[in-house]
């Protein structure tokens, strides 16, 4: 987590005092995309920052958690390129299997997008809002801006500067850890990245209002899950340093309104691009064990696709795994609904059997287990399931 937070910080922290203040003073319509960034000299603070990020990028490239799906990669790259314009060749997006809502950009052009974010977006335009925001950090060189700001304000910052100037591609873990706490983006930088993100969306033909919807959706989840939130949300730089969600939701809506109606949302394209991975991402989502948030997510998805049996199954799973109060009864209800729908996996019957067993209804459990075996005769857990049925007899 340390490293993630660090990169997030860098991706979200920056300086370049001049370009930054200039951009703040401009209205979005006047904002001009800065030219392509050149690799900084190795013996500068910016060069040190890039060298460390190069190492992080190498690790990401080798990571077993990197999703290596060319079709999905091409799709996401395509969106990034439409937004980034001339910067397209300098931006490299990595899709990482981690079930949390996060994306970040390193100053060297490496961007990570996590699967927990992808599964939460409902349209291509929403993903474009995220990518546009991150590209905003990159083109404004926010990481460097932040580094220089920290350096100018403290002896620790000066020490960091010396460290980076000497990094020359050999950044150590200790150096990374030092930077982790120092380079979170400021709230003003986040606001600026939001403005640029909406601008880039509009220029690329996306519906800018989708940016605000990202936050509407996320806030729904956060509010529902306030009691059971895990440490990630509490510690996330995203929520510590970003402006409050309500403010972002409101401001993004105002910025979008100023752009006027219209624009493409790309719901269908997005759904198709993620289709192969949705099941896997939702399995990971359940493993977070933040059921209130997962329930909001699934109910939102079901509102859009009420006849999707797989989504109903996952909703049942969320209830089954929490197993508090009336959860098991809710799980059965969700499983029953999914029975009549398309896309319901055979595992639904196994889960239904387990829940009936917990509720003491052995007959119903036996029927459900038998149905599971009927649909999946070569199931790797078949022998064990048969013992469940035998026990019921």
């Amino acid at each position: 987590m340390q490293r993630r937070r660090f990169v997030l910080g860098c991706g979200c922290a920056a300086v370049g005092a001049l370009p930054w203040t200039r951009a703040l003073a401009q209205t979005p319509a006047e904002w001009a995309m800065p030219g392509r960034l050149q690799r900084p000299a190795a013996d500068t603070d910016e060069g040190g920052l890039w060298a460390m990020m190069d190492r992080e990028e190498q690790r990401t490239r080798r990571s077993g958690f990197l999703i290596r799906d060319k079709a999905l990669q091409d799709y996401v790259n395509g969106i990034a390129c439409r937004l980034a314009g001339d910067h397209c060749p300098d931006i490299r997006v990595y899709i990482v299997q981690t079930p949390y809502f996060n994306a970040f950009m390193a100053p060297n052009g490496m961007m990570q997008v996590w699967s927990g974010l992808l599964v939460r977006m409902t349209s291509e335009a929403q993903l474009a809002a995220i990518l546009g925001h991150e590209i905003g950090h990159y083109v404004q060189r926010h990481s460097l801006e932040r580094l220089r700001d920290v350096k100018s304000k403290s002896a620790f910052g000066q020490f960091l500067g010396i460290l980076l100037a000497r990094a020359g591609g050999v950044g150590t873990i200790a150096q990374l850890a030092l930077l982790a706490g120092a380079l979170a983006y400021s709230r003003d930088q986040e606001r600026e990245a939001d403005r640029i993100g909406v601008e880039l969306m509009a220029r690329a033909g996306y519906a800018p209002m989708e940016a605000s919807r990202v936050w509407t959706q996320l806030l729904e989840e956060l509010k529902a899950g306030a009691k059971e939130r895990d440490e990630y949300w509490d510690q996330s730089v995203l929520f510590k340093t970003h402006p409050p969600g309500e403010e972002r939701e409101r401001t993004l809506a105002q910025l979008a309104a100023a752009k006027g109606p219209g624009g493409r949302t790309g719901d269908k394209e997005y759904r198709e691009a993620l289709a192969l991975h949705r099941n896997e991402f939702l399995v990971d989502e359940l493993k977070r064990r933040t059921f209130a948030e997962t329930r909001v997510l699934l109910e939102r998805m079901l509102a859009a696709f009420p006849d999707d049996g797989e989504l109903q199954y996952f909703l049942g799973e969320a209830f089954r795994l929490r197993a508090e109060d009336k959860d098991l009864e809710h799980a059965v209800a969700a499983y029953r609904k999914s029975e009549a729908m398309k896309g319901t996996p055979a595992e639904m019957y196994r889960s239904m059997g387990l829940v009936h067993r917990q509720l003491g209804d052995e007959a119903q459990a036996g029927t459900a287990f038998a149905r599971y075996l009927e649909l999946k005769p070569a199931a790797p857990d078949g022998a064990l399931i048969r013992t469940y049925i035998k026990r019921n007899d």
Partner: protein
Amino acid sequence: MKLRILLAALALAALAGCTSITKVGPGQVTVKDLTLNLEGPWNKFESSALVLFQAPGATEIWTREGFTLDVLAFYVGIGDGEAIGQSLPRTQKKMPVFRLKMAPHEIVEAFETVVTQDGSTLKVAKIEPMRFAGGDGFRFEYELKRKGDSLLFNGIGFATVANKKLYLMAYSAPRTHYFPKLAPGMEAAMRSATIKR
């Protein structure tokens, strides 16, 4: 990163004297009321200060080659309503609770929750009924991808419920080299388990 933190923490803890590694076996060894008959020696990790990412809150943790490589974790003598495992420091996640009514599938789900708190992923490849420690039990095989370094592990677990308590042993080692080399000996150790019922 997690691996490095773990190694650093282990080194620091060892220096501070709060961690020790002792030899167990060969011969008869007991973990609570579970008895094993070991053909060879194992290393037992003892610490009051650390929770290993691979087996948070385990009753005991053993290894043959080193704790960052292979781990034999014991979750034994867990009564109805008691938590299986322990939350990693700083996470404060609610740990799953053992219930007598739990089916083997649900016990494995609980085990998965405990050992993947650091973001590792676990996929159950097989789960089958099997005699264990003198009673009805089950055996499961799994694949684990460790978060810190993406290293792929294979794992085997055995479990049973005896005297209204859960007894679960799980062993994991890197898929290449270590697991094929060490799994047979480990499985023999697991199969030697007995519990006074």
